[in-house]
């Protein structure tokens, strides 16, 4: 099994490690504390990147689900599934860090506003994606059903992104593109986004390789025993 070695050869492990150390340094030592909400605002530097990475992960699932349905090759399904799995992990982080940040700032853990509700729905859609695979009697059928969920479920991603602009929500609007951040804050955020993007790529490659290996092993086993 040369997965770790192949990641090392690509330099991804090293890059991810360096970026994560840089991100932690910048979040806790470099960036100034925000005036209005204080030290707890530092959750923002990980909350926003994990949200971005979860959108990216579901987009990758969407693309590779289309590829799987058109080509019917299990390698595309392995990437789609690995990315959905990572997406669920990162959306879970969004749904946990959001309320932890919300409680001291808004005074409540949760409210059923458009952004929070669509984010929860997004998480449920991709949990369903993973469950559909588990319940299917044969891998190809599970892959086909989940690919449909992966394509249809992606509709919720732009919806989650646009909710804060379409409706009045408790959740703040997108300040990143409107110049609402000072330069140190923006640089810190970008480094954190880069760190989490590399982490996502690493996890997805590792998981997709394991899934491909599992499929190949099952085929070999059936050939050997059959």
């Amino acid at each position, binding site marked *: 099994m040369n997965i770790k070695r192949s990641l090392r050869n690509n330099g991804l492990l090293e890059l991810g490690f360096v970026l994560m150390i840089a991100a932690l340094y910048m979040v806790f030592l470099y960036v100034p504390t925000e005036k209005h909400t204080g*030290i707890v605002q530092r959750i923002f530097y*990980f909350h926003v990147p994990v949200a971005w990475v979860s959108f990216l992960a579901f987009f990758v699932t969407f693309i590779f689900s289309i590829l799987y349905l058109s080509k019917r090759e299990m390698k595309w399904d392995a990437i789609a599934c690995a990315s959905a799995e*990572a997406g669920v992990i990162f959306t879970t982080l969004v749904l*946990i860090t959001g309320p*932890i940040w919300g409680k001291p700032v808004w005074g409540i853990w949760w409210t059923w506003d458009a952004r929070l509700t669509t984010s929860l729905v997004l998480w449920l859609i991709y949990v369903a994606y993973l469950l559909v695979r588990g319940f299917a009697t044969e891998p190809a059928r599970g892959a086909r059903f989940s690919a449909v969920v992966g394509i249809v479920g992606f509709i919720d991603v732009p919806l989650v992104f646009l909710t804060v602009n379409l409706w009045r929500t408790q959740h703040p609007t997108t300040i990143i593109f409107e110049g609402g951040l000072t330069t140190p804050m923006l640089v810190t955020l970008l480094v954190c986004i880069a760190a989490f993007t590399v982490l996502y790529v690493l*996890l997805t490659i590792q998981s997709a390789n*394991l899934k491909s*290996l599992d499929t190949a092993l099952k085929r*070999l*086993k059936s050939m050997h025993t059959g």
Partner: protein
Amino acid sequence: MENLGYLFAAYTVIWAIVFGYILFMQRNQRRLQRQINLLQESIDKTENDG
């Protein structure tokens, strides 16, 4: 240092879940390695018998 507990909780949760997922994948990797070894033994045995 008001609300430091919330900040600590958020970062702890993030790392706990990320490491949990890495451990889950490592367990899968070990399971696959065991299956490969079993299959290899089975193939070797069949070849020796044949």
